[in-house]
């Protein structure tokens, strides 16, 4: 099929998912509320000592972001699977991996990107310095798409299962570890006033790798789950 129709299908699917999300606006808040709630639990558990909180803040916020992203993954294919439109994607005239990429980008725009809006607030809650909050935003910007891309593989593998959610975390969380390590450490390092270009380049590398490879894996997984 010509690239024109490919771009049109890509844009169409992106428009459709954003429109669907817009029509159920209230659900957009769920990942954000979860993100804030989980982060506020930690000081209650660890105690309010600012120095201690500042030390553990990067790890806490990034683990909370990771969990928020993972919990919102189920919506990527679940509703399409139940009403049969996922089958229509499988037999569309466009390669499935491109359609999958459109859906994952839409999912990131709906659930991943908004985390950046709330992140500075949480940074203040945990006494983080200005530099580390800036680093937090940068790492979230680079990291959350990777979470959506890799998570989509897990969702595609478990879309046909009745209780796939439990297994999804076991499949996906180990694959999130590199993002967590580089991102959390970037925030901690910038807090100490050191440059974090190495971390950001590694995160960018993970992003490029997952943008190019994971849609293929997700498409293959969908074809198997629906066979």
């Amino acid at each position, binding site marked *: 099929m010509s690239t024109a129709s490919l771009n049109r299908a890509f844009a169409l699917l992106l428009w459709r998912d954003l429109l669907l999300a817009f*029509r159920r606006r209230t659900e957009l808040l769920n990942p954000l509320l979860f993100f804030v709630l989980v982060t506020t639990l930690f000081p209650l558990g660890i105690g309010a000592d600012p120095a201690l909180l500042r030390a553990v803040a990067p790890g806490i916020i990034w683990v909370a972001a990771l969990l928020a992203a993972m919990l919102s993954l189920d919506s990527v294919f679940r509703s399409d699977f139940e009403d049969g439109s996922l089958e229509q*994607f499988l037999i569309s005239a466009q390669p499935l991996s491109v359609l999958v990429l459109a859906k994952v980008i839409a999912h990131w725009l709906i659930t991943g990107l908004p985390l950046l809006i709330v992140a500075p607030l949480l940074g203040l809650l945990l006494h983080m310095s200005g530099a580390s909050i800036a680093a937090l935003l940068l790492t979230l910007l680079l990291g959350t798409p990777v979470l959506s891309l890799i998570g989509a593989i897990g969702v595609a593998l478990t879309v046909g299962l009745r209780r796939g959610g439990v297994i999804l975390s076991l499949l996906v969380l180990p694959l999130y570890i590199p993002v967590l390590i580089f991102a959390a450490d970037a925030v901690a390092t910038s807090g100490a006033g050191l440059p974090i270009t190495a971390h950001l380049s590694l995160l960018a590398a993970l992003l490029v790798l997952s943008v190019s490879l994971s849609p293929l894996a997700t498409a293959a997984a969908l074809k198997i789950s629906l066979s």
Partner: protein
Amino acid sequence: MAAVATDTGLNARHLACMRNDRNLFEQLSFRLGCGQALILEGRNGSGKTSLLRILCGMRQPDDGRLHWDGEDIFRLGPEYHAQIAYVGHRDGVKQDLSAGENLRLARGLGAPNPAFSIEAALDRVELWEHEDVLARNLSAGQQRRLALARLLVTRAKLWILDEPFTSLDSHGIDIVESLFANHLAGGGMLAVTSHHPVSLNDADIIRINLST
């Protein structure tokens, strides 16, 4: 009836399909050319839906080959999918989108059919002025007709339909049968499963019963 050249259209050879260890069907061969309709019969669970999903390329046959214009459909991939349209048990209609939006999406995913605008397709299934009505507000019969209207907005040569008449009243069935007749007259192809009889008066019909 256009002379059926040797390898145009769908050509199935020795298809076999297993479900958890029972052979649903085996050594199934048939050929479907322009203007021909394949009507699948058989009791529930005899593999009708599985065969349709194999025809769509969504499921690998456990054995045998399926060719479209002489080429294996799994090697063709999206090229083959541009030639087919499928309506399964589930309508594939998004409840939160309007009828027009659903059709615009279907048109974008397939090869757009210039002959039918969204409006014309809706009129053809007698969903006049329903373009901006949310699918959730349509009756089951209307949603089914909307799903079938999807067939019109793409240039699909082969229509693959699983129980197209479910939740349709007699008038709805007449509309759909006239759609089929036009499609076949225009050189299209049809593969359909249905419990009640499909009256395609003079079309060239191939009947396969999977439960014999």
